């Protein structure tokens, strides 16, 4: 691919002061301004060049000065008093505060191992064991291994149709989302206009919505009697595709947008200066630079669509089945464990392939970009959350992008014109049109859902909502309102569990061990952790049923059975949300805190948790939203008298008459309100410090506020001069 010759080969031309090109990754470091002088000593002071070199952004160790390197070395503490670099403030440290004997390396390691052991044990007991048992049951016949299931299924044309449909629906959604995300992102993340925040929130919201609600919303929209019922797309491929795009387009736009917002705009400007038209500049400069984000977001979207359950179940009808719903039918309806096990393996294969493809494409792209220099900024972009790091990236999901390291796009050095410009129809019409289409796509089903929920057999009114409290209407031993209350309690328990486990995982994964085996172990841990995303929730729920049924873990009738399954489903998202900001914490802050005598837990509370607390809040909200809307595993585990709201809604859909549909619609609105409210509360609560009010001391924002921010020249100038 031809690269414009004017692409700057070096990240920061001499005329640009360091801050202009300072990447968001560096933002935690201003916090060092209020640390004791040891860390701000000349040796330890961050050198702008080091921080901006590609290696610096990639490997934190290399970014550190020799002193900080020693700080990290386990042997240092004993030698500290004699070997510390001279500093004018050294006298302010009381010698006993260093407590050189307190933190032995083995103690640290033991502590870390213990922290790692909890999530590892959780995954082993509540994920690997049930799933492995289920799969093994499918492959054993009369006590010996029996692999004939593969052959039998491979010989059936239906199996290949199922795989074809699964891959087809995922690929189609991914392509549509990618195609829409670029124009949408260019408007929502590169332009400034009133209502931008609202549009961003609108596009991101579907990701937090329960899948049952989305399925129902599209059924009410496209089904007989719906406003788009005349299209005749009541069930089958098209409604499923519409629902999946609804779910994922905002996510994709967010991943691309946060990445794009932090991308160096100068190569594109250079291309324009050299005479390339806007389309050519887009095609030859910007799109290739966006490829990592597209690959990362794309593999994520593919993953979610290949394992979509409730939308396919509700919108697919009897004849449109995918691998995921077929696993459900084989287990719940036919009790054919062999076929279900084979299909589970097939699904894991498809998902692993998608993840591998995404990771490979992104890595290749990044390597190429690094060579040409374009990638310099992008390597240091936490705004994309995990995608910049490992591609599975839930970190960029929803508001987490902003919460996580998500300061991408808002640089300390000042806003760039590309961000500040208002959109104009002449230039931005493709973006405006696409965004309008996508906003309609998302708003229409939801508005229609709310509207239809008010329609009762007795005319418009709140009848369906009043019926939520009526036990005789739900076809269950309890009313929908009780189911909603139970959902909330269960989701609170599940969310708390997911958050606690996610924190433990993030602590372990955010360490940067130097030993290769330790890094390998981390990588393995990371992949196992993401596996619940790729394994059918149905498989998890079913595995729970057949393993957690005897002492010492007889949870069959326990309240905790459903929260455990939901926590498992929510855990990957929680980790992807917390991990990027935890990883971006400057290790020197840990070291400084330790030097000052803080115990490890205190370092965690005062440094990591304080810096990542917005991400923590967002992760908690996500964990709740995911748990409260979880359907696949819960539909297996819920007993008739302990039904959660999504399962109750789905059951209502199978009952006749407009009244039951109306009740289901009202329940869906209630469920959607619960999740959206929690997400919105988190957003507003944690947005407050952004206002001019003085932020709480010690917070990340306080660090930003006290950071020295010398005025930077506009980034559109090359070498400090106007072009």
């Amino acid at each position, binding site marked *: 691919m031809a690269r414009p010759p004017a692409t700057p080969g070096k990240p920061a031309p001499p005329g640009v002061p360091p801050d202009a090109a300072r990447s968001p990754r560096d933002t935690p470091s201003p916090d060092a301004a209020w640390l004791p002088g040891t860390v701000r000593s000349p040796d330890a002071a961050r050198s702008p060049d080091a921080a901006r070199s590609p290696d610096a952004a990639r490997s934190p160790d290399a970014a550190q000065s020799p002193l900080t390197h020693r700080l990290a070395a386990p042997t240092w503490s004993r030698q500290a008093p004699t070997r510390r670099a001279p500093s004018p403030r050294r006298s302010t440290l009381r010698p006993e505060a260093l407590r050189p004997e307190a933190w032995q390396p083995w103690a640290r390691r*033991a502590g870390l191992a213990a922290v790692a052991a909890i999530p590892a044990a959780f995954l082993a007991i509540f994920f690997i064991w049930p799933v492995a048992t289920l799969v093994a049951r499918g492959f054993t016949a009369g006590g010996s291994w029996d692999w004939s299931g593969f052959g039998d299924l491979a010989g059936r044309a239906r199996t290949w149709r199922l795989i074809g449909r699964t891959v087809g629906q995922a690929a189609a959604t991914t392509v549509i989302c990618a195609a829409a995300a670029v124009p949408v992102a260019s408007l929502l993340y590169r332009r400034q206009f009133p209502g931008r925040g609202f549009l961003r929130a609108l596009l991101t919201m579907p990701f937090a919505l329960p899948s049952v609600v989305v399925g129902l919303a599209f059924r009410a929209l496209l089904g007989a009697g719906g406003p788009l019922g005349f299209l005749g797309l009541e069930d089958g491929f098209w409604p499923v595709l519409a629902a999946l795009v609804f779910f994922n387009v905002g996510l994709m736009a967010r991943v691309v947008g946060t990445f794009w917002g932090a991308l160096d705009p100068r190569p594109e400007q250079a291309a324009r200066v050299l005479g390339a038209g806007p389309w050519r500049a887009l095609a030859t400069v910007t799109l290739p630079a966006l490829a990592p984000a597209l690959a990362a977001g794309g593999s994520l979207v593919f993953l979610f669509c290949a394992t979509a359950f409730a939308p396919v179940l509700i919108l697919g009808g009897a004849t449109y089945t995918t691998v995921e719903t077929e696993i459900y039918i084989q287990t719940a309806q036919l009790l054919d464990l062999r076929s279900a096990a084979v299909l589970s393996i097939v699904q894991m294969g498809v998902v692993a392939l998608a993840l591998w493809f995404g990771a490979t494409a992104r890595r290749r792209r990044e390597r190429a970009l690094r060579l040409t220099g374009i990638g310099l900024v992008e390597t240091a972009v936490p705004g994309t959350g995990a995608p910049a790091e490992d591609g599975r990236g839930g970190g960029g999901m929803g508001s987490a992008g902003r919460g996580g390291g998500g300061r991408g796009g808002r640089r300390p050095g000042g806003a760039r014109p590309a961000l500040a410009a208002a959109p104009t129809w002449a230039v931005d019409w493709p973006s405006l049109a696409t965004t309008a289409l996508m906003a309609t796509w998302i708003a229409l089903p939801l508005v229609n859902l709310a509207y239809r929920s008010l329609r009762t057999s007795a005319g418009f009114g709140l009848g369906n909502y009043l019926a939520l409290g009526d036990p005789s209407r739900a076809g269950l031993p309890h009313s929908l309102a009780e189911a909603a209350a139970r959902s909330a309690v269960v989701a609170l328990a599940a969310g708390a569990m997911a958050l606690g486990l996610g924190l433990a995982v993030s602590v372990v994964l955010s360490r940067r061990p130097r030993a290769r085996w330790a890094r390998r172990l981390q990588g393995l841990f990371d992949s196992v952790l993401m596996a619940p995303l790729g394994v059918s929730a149905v498989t998890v729920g079913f595995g729970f049923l057949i393993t957690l049924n005897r002492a010492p873990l007889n949870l069959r009738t326990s309240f905790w059975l459903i929260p455990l399954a939901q926590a498992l489903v929510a855990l990957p998202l929680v980790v992807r949300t917390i991990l990027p900001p935890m990883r971006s914490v400057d290790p020197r802050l840990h070291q400084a805190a330790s030097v000052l005598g803080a*115990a*490890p837990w205190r370092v965690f509370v005062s440094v990591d948790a304080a810096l990542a607390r917005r991400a923590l809040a967002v992760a908690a909200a996500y964990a709740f939203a995911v748990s409260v809307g979880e359907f696949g595993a819960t539909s297996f585990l819920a007993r008739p008298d302990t039904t959660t709201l999504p399962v109750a809604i789905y059951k209502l859909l199978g009952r006749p008459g407009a009244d039951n549909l109306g009740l289901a619609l009202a329940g869906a609105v209630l469920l959607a309100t619960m999740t959206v409210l929690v997400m919105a509360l988190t957003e507003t609560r944690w947005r407050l410090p952004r206002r001019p009010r003085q932020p709480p001391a010690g917070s990340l924002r306080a660090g930003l506020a006290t950071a020295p921010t010398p005025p930077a020249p506009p980034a559109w100038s090359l070498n400090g001069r106007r072009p």
Partner: protein
Amino acid sequence: MRRRPSQPATPAAAARFSAPAESPRRPRLPAARAASGIIVALAATLVAGGCGGTGPETPKAPGANGPSGTVKLVTHGSFALSAEVLADFTAQTGLELQLLPSDDAGAMVNQLILTKDAPLGDAVFGIDNTFASRAIAEGVLEPYQSPQAGPEQDPHTAGLEGRLTAIDFSDVCLNADLRAIPGGADLTFDDLVKPEFEDQLVVENPATSSPGLAFLLATIAARGEDGWLEYWRALKANGLKVVSGWNEAYYDEFSGPSSAGQRPLVASYASSPPSEVPAGESAPATAAALATCFRQVEYAGVLNGAANPQGARKVIDFLLSAPVQADLPGQMWVYPVRPDTPLPDDWARWAPLAERPWSLAPSDIAANRERWLAEFNDQVLG
């Protein structure tokens, strides 16, 4: 926590990093300690959940399961009885009857099989003759001979080891909208593949719906092992529509007076027509084609390992009692198993039973159901 005066501007933040004042020299493993705290908390929750079994949502669980308090009846999704009849149970026995509606019969039986170590309830109603053999083979049920059961049970319970008691039965037949197909009551399987009935039939997916399975079994009985698949291919070529469940088929796709769909032929029950009398008319607008019927028997049984087996037995007796049997036709559109039960007047006129319903031996069904369904899935659903 001490503040050191010489530190720069943000004292609160700096204080966070100052050394804890207490016991500075005692070696500790704080990370491990924090971790052990989490472990203890997690273990405590698990133990509480695993051993106690009483979550926040079941505060009254202890004692509620006791032999005298409540009896839980697992039913299929369309169970219904009049409220006053249900209230009689409490009046007669002093037990509170808790209904636990599950999904359709097939999914319910599978759920019972999967949960047999910790049964969902005490008794079950709604296992039909296509799933009875599976439930018995998996050991879900306990034997019980109700004193209310008479000789009328015999044709239905052969081979069931005394573990199930027949409560009601019905014929699954093709239903026709007589306004579109005047001769609908006389239709046979042969007619359905004729061009004049193109795009008119809707049936339930036999994998997810018990009337769907019954209709499939009727065609297998009629066409034989060699011909049924060919017959379904012909149906498919003739515009057959398959939907997930009976509710969807009957209420959303069928064109009858109480339905919203367009297709005049549906797989439903012989007892459906009496409730399809249009306002102001005296006869139903639909009819069952009695040459296409498959007899479906619904059973009740005591679950193995029930918390309240005494209560469960009383439930079986109750379901066979005269008031319940008399309530069945009006509530669930099925025929009561006891022959002495009076039927509603319109049933005698408009809901006759098939004289010679199609049938298959339960052993045949048990042995071949999975294969039939797999072939149906492959060839008809695609």
